[in-house]
Structures are given as C-alpha cells and as structure tokens.
C-alpha cells in the first residue's frame, strides 16, 4: 500500500497542443484490431492492451501524479458490470466492443448509425491528463486518450433547436451482467447542455495511458467531463441525441434529491451522503480539499454565470 501525504493543490495547466499530427485510418485500425485480439483473451484487471500511435499531448493537462493503471482499472463504478468496485474488472471480458456503432439522432442534419471507426477516424487523438472526481469523494488523475466532443457534434451539424445532448450506454444483459437486475433503471442515460458539450474540456475518450480503453473503464468510447462528478461521464456509449429539452439522467431518476442534472464538482454543495468539501485521492492518506469545478473553474465557471449552483446541483 502506497501512502503519501497530500500536498496542496497547485495545479498548472500545461501548454496547448504542440503540433497537429495527422493520424491515418490504418494506424488506428491496427490498434483497434489488436485491441480486439487482446480483448477476447480474459484480462483480469486490464493488462496492457494495444498502444495508440501518434497521440499528441492535448491542452488542459495537469502535471499532478497520475493514478497507477492498476488502480484505475480495478476500482470502478460501472454498475452495468456489477456494483462492487472490483466487479467491473472481473466482468469486463464479457463485453464485446467490436463491431460497435453509435446511433445519432434528434436535432442534427446528419443523423444515422455511425460505425465506431468511422466516428473516430476524422479526429486526431489527444492525451488529456484530467482529474476525475467521483461523487463518493474519492479522486484519481487519469491520462485519457480522446478528442473533443464538440468536434463530433459540429460534424453532425446540430439544428438551431438543439439545446442539449443526450447519451445512452449499451443495454445488453448478456454482455453486462449488472443489467440483469434493476439496481438502477437501464439503460444508463446521461446528458449535457449543448454549451457544456461544446466546451473544449469535454472529450470522448477511446483510451487511457496511451492504450485502448479497458472494458471496465467504458470501452470502446466514453464521455469525460472533468469538472463534473464521475457519473456524468457516461461509459460504453451507443446512442447520442441532440434534443430540445433537458434529457433525463440515470442517477437523477434514481435519487433526484441526491443527484442533479448538472452535478458540477462543488465543495460548497454537499451530497446528502457525503460532504463534498474534501476528497481522497486514490493512493494518498490525507484528504485533499476539493476544488470548485474540480479545479477547472477558470475554464468552465462562465458557463454557469448567474446560476444558483446550490439549486442547480
């Protein structure tokens, strides 16, 4: 067990993407194919999968110490694969992530069902080292591999009526044993306001630690919105709709008093079960003070100007 004494939060965002590197389809496909090959062998806890090539360093990265890969892949909240923290790693092998497609609908000029590779192909993969803050008051630092969600949405050409984005996780109790019981209402759904979704911090991640996304972390494609509690970052996405009205979200349906639509990390607004003032960074002994918007206030606070964040929790 590694015990470190927490240090004060002195986060520096690193420089903007150094250069544009074009990532060709073939290279990505090779990584994807290798990923399938590995995924069919059971990987307890997620052993190293295929490495991505040509991933560039993205903006907003923190230089805080990254949480060990073993912890990020063995301590998961992914109820589709079981409610225990270790269940997702144990049940990961049953999830088939290729072929994979994402249905896009609602207020867009280009609706349709997109193959995973076709959706990802046009985008340059970036590494984004983000803090992840769970609503249960623990946190991690994860180097994601992905691309801005906003770039995808732009390509889909939202109509003027689009105001929110609704996401949905795969619903397949065969592959996801956690869905055989209605612990929460399946399928898992999440949503963002369109301006939140367009914010450059919000990404769709297809990997982490330079590798293909392990199944227990939401393979093959998941959302990462680092200024919100972890449950907003929906995993294993199969559907995306641009909609006019605020879409329902899974945990809000489960317990509306506990989980709001916005669920921005906010140390001053307590959850009924946990104080949100402090958090335990995985691997550390002392708790740290939780930062407003998980330390991304400079980037996102303006999205919520004039809003009562205690009411819109």
């Amino acid at each position, binding site marked *: *067990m590694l015990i470190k004494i927490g240090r004060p939060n002195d986060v520096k965002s690193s420089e903007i993407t150094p250069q544009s590197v074009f990532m060709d389809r073939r290279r990505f496909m090779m990584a994807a194919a290798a990923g399938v090959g590995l995924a069919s062998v059971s990987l307890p806890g997620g052993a190293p999968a295929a490495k991505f090539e040509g991933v560039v360093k993205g903006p907003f990265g923190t230089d805080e110490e990254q949480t060990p890969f*073993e*912890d990020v892949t*063995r*301590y998961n909240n992914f*109820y589709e694969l079981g*409610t225990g*923290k*270790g269940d997702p790693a144990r049940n990961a092998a049953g999830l088939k992530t290729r072929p994979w497609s994402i249905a896009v609908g609602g207020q867009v000029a280009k609706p349709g069902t997109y193959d995973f590779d076709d959706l990802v192909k046009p985008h340059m993969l970036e590494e984004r080292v983000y803090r992840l803050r769970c609503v*249960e008051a*623990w946190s991690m630092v994860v180097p994601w591999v992905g691309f801005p969600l906003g770039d995808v949405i732009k390509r889909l050409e939202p109509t003027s009526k689009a105001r929110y984005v609704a996401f949905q996780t795969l619903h397949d109790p065969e592959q996801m044993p956690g869905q055989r019981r209605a*612990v*929460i209402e399946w399928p898992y759904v999440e949503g963002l306001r369109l301006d939140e979704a367009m914010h450059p911090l919000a990404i769709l991640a297809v990997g982490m630690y330079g590798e293909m996304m392990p199944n227990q972390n939401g393979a093959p494609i998941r959302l990462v919105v680092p200024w919100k509690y972890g449950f907003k970052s929906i995993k294993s996405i199969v559907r995306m709709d641009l909609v006019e009205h605020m879409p329902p979200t899974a945990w809000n349906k*489960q*317990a509306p008093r506990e989980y709001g639509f916005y669920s921005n990390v906010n140390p001053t607004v*307590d959850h*009924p*079960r*946990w*104080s949100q*003032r*402090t958090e*335990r960074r*995985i*691997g550390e*002994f*002392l*708790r740290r003070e939780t930062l407003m918007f998980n330390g991304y206030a400079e980037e996102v606070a303006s999205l919520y100007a004039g809003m009562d964040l205690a009411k819109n929790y």
Partner: protein
Amino acid sequence: MGPFMGRAAKPVVFILCLLPLAWLAWRATSGGLGANPIEATNRYLGDWGLRFLLMVLAVTPFAGLSGWKGVFRVRRMLGLFAFTYVLLHLTSYVVLDHFFSWRDIWADIVKRNFITVGMVNVVLLTPLAATSTNAMVRRLGARRWRMVHRLVYVIGILGVVHFYMMVKADVREPLVYAAILALLLGWRVAAAWRRRRGRRPAASARP
C-alpha cells in the same frame, strides 16, 4: 461434550473472534485491500461489528432451538467483540478516513443521517459494554440489568439501518442482514407469544 470441551470453549471462541482482525492485518500488509485501502478497512470493520451483533442476538434462539444452554457462556464475549469491532470501525472512520478532522466529522454527524445513526449506536452500545461485568450485574440487580441490555434489540435494528442508508443503490447486502435480524427478533416475539398462550389455560383453570 465433556468438561474439557466446556473449559476450552471460551478460549477457542476468543481466538475465532480475533480471526477477522488477523485477516484484515494480513490483507493490509500484503497489499490486498485494493485501490482504496481506507474505505476497504472501514467497510470491513463495520461489516464485522454488525455480524457480531447478529451473532449475539442469535444466542438465545440458538439455545432455544438446539436445547444446548452452554452457548450462553460465550454470549458476553460475543457482545464485547461486537463492541470492539464497532469501536474499531469508529476509530478507522475518525483516524484513517478523516484523520481527526473534527470539523468534517461533526458536519457528518449532523448532516449525514447514516452517520448520525451510527454514532447513536456507539453511544447506545457503550453502557452495555460498561455493565458487562459480574460486579455490574450484581450492582444493578438482575432485573434492571436485563432492562438495560434490552437495548441490544434497538442497536441491532439501528446497525442494519445504518448499513442500508449508506448504500447508494444496491441494497441486497443490507437486506440480507435485515432478513437475518428479522428472523432473530421474530423468533423472540413468537417465543413470547407461545409463553403467554401457555400461561393462559393455567390461569383460566383457577377457580
């Protein structure tokens, strides 16, 4: 069961009651507690506090069903182990989870209902542990002592409630504890019912 078994029972049970602690120590030193060892330790100690409470409550039904009264001789020890594990659970919460941050702990007690319930339970358990000696039984007198120790029923219920309220969505495990508790308390209600019914014909037989 010879007299030797009778004499060996207490030390054997004592050792058995320490095994969960030994297992925890082994896992803690071998890195077996996972990514969040503090949470794992806290949950584990709470689990065992609740299990020992249920074991104490199982003594009377067990004696009634099996007819073996010897089990009463370890009841006090089981009760004190329940208290010990609950205290360790509280200690891990104060020391490991919050490292003496009294401000956060107080905020938890006031605002977090499941923590309020847990704290009340520690307060309720303390007089039971304090009056567990033979000298205290004599001092209070058997009747008053028994009245005080009926608190254990409330403590058992609050223990399960504490667990149930803590869980986010998957309440299967707390419900298992609740079902066991319901059986143990239900057995007592049924036994009291039977006793009363058994007395009634005798009463009506009086002239």
